[in-house]
């Protein structure tokens, strides 16, 4: 699985970043302009300009239409951008840390841990009716704690037994931990059938309920994750060559791994906690970036962040327009796009699986 390949220490070029930023802007505009409710584009633009301090325009939109733009679409697009950025950034980071281009945030148990914790909270809440566990923040908090707990468990299982473990051991540990936690979730769901509806809708991804509070909840973790990962991105290039070489270059490979995994897990957990489970972004986006712009993590990570943001926000536009006035769960669309892409990558790129 681990496949040290020669990495040409490519530099991040300005034009690639500009393309990424352009993609984000396109997603932003599309996200605000398109939706199941058709709104006059000029009205939308005026309504948005009106948000700026000191600007007072008459957008001509009704109260409801204005609310759709400023209170639904805007936070939803922003949240989609943040979640997409986090998932893609975390995916790229895990791939670097584990030297496995197929690594994904969810492979380490993030999804299973969050799923179990959310199910437990929803099940307990609906049977107890206890106000203290019925707070609106409970589901995000549970998802967050569950995701981090699962990653920690994976880490403990995967690294116990001392040195000499290959990075692959960790991924296998993640698979085992995931299976175990998912079994627990299935059991809970069966015992508390009345919670199934709420849990499944969360599992399907839920940008549809996005609000500004979700954005605010997520923002600090996003900034922290970005800062840590982007500052360490050179170390990933060195790690990709091998631990010996990294040591030779004066790096503490294990410490770098801890820091990077912790940051990526924190970012993923934050994304999962506000948006539910949205798969494949963490694999597809870094891969596409690697294929197009080169295999250096110096390039992959920042670009994955930008394109991940644009990818998810645009997927969300599709999720709410394709079957309008109903919504398609966003995870269904990311899987529809992601799985075939994943298979193509698997079959065409040599050496991916070692």
């Amino acid at each position, binding site marked *: 699985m681990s496949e040290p390949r020669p990495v040409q220490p490519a530099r991040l070029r300005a034009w690639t970043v500009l393309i990424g930023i352009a993609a984000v802007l396109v997603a932003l505009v599309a996200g605000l302009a398109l*939706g*199941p*409710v058709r709104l006059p584009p000029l009205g939308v633009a005026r309504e948005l300009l009106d948000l700026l301090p000191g600007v007072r325009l008459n957008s001509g939109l009704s*109260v*409801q*239409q204005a*609310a*759709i733009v*400023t*209170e*639904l*679409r805007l*936070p939803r697009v922003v949240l989609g951008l943040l979640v997409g950025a986090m998932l893609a950034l975390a995916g790229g980071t895990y791939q670097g840390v584990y030297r496995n281009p197929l690594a994904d945030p969810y492979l380490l148990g993030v999804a299973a841990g969050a799923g179990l914790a959310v199910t437990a909270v929803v099940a307990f*809440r*609906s049977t107890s*009716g206890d106000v203290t566990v*019925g707070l*609106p923040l409970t589901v995000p908090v549970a998802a967050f704690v569950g995701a981090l707990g699962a990653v920690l468990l994976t880490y403990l299982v995967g690294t116990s037994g001392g040195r000499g473990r290959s990075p692959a051991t960790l991924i296998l540990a993640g698979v085992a931990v995931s299976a175990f936690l998912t079994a627990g979730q299935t059991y809970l769901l*069966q015992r508390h*059938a*009345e*919670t*199934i*509806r*709420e849990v*499944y*809708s969360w*599992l*399907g991804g*839920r940008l*549809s*309920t996005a*609000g*500004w509070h979700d954005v605010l909840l997520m923002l600090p973790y996003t900034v922290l994750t970005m800062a840590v990962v982007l500052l360490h991105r050179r170390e990933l290039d060195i790690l990709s060559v091998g631990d010996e070489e990294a040591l030779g270059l004066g790096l503490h490979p294990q410490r770098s791994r801890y820091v990077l995994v912790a940051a990526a897990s924190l970012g993923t957990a934050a994304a999962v906690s506000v948006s539910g489970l949205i798969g494949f972004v963490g694999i597809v986006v870094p891969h596409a970036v690697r294929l197009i712009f080169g295999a250096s993590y110096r390039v992959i990570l920042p670009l994955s962040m930008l394109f991940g943001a644009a990818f998810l926000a645009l997927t969300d536009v599709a999720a*709410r327009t394709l079957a*309008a*006035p*109903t*919504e*398609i*769960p966003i*995870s*269904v669309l990311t899987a529809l796009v992601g799985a075939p892409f994943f298979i193509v990558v698997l079959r065409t790129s040599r050496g991916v699986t070692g």
Partner: protein
Amino acid sequence: MLRRTPALVAVLAAATLAVTGCGGGNDTPAAPASASDAAYPVSVGTVTLTEQPTKIVSLSPTATEMLFAIGAGSQVAAVDDQSNYPPEAPKTDLSGYQPNAEAIAGSSPDLVVLANDTNKIVDQLTKLKVPVYVAPAAKTLDDTYQQISDLGRLTGHADQATALNGQMKNDIDKLITDLPRPAGKKLRYYYELDPNYYTVTDQTFVGALFGELGLTSIANSADKDGSAGGYPQLSPEVVIDAGPDFVFLADVNCCQQTPEKVSERAGWGGIPAVTQHRVVALDDDIASRWGPRTVDLVRTVADAVAAASN
């Protein structure tokens, strides 16, 4: 998940009941007294009972409510984990969602009542020679009356079942005819099954009842071809844009939704239902079952409509 969730909603929109007043009022000592006037064997559909059942297992909350409302409560030996009404129903940890033939047959019932045939449970129980009656989610009130009447015959309470049906019909008819109708167009409502905006169209049990009260769902265009089974999921912006006159919350117990929370939702503050205080909290259980307490649901909604037209 796409295919699964509406099905789940439909299943969940299925449970039990007992009419307040009716259950307690008829104090006929159930089994022995009424056994005399019931002639067995009785056949309903494919079920045949040779004698009056005394150990009934109900895995449907709606059926549980029906059984108690027709005076067959004392014959009920066990009910599923969702049957929470009436309170004296002998609740067990049997699951109606994941019925288990061995667990059910273990209590050697002489009649099992189910709302759906999950896990091929009907076949399995039939092999074990356990009589099974399936009372699936009603699509119309007539289905409800039919199930009550079937259960009445099977349990030896045919007369009480007939009386209950008559009472329900009267009550509902009276609520409908007494309702002051706002002249002109139908009032439009959004009925919330869960916080992810699953709702009902006019083509559902609830939708039809609400239609009788002069209401129409905002979701009809979301399920034109009926592929969502009358339970489509709406985009939130569609709900806001539709500007319903009423919001009915059927996710109060399950998901802690309240009229206050609805008014605080992003973008919802301006819809007529919120500005005119027409967000109505329902009892999830009553709202999702098609049994005797359907009258209570109709009454709640009729009251809301009446208040709005004052």
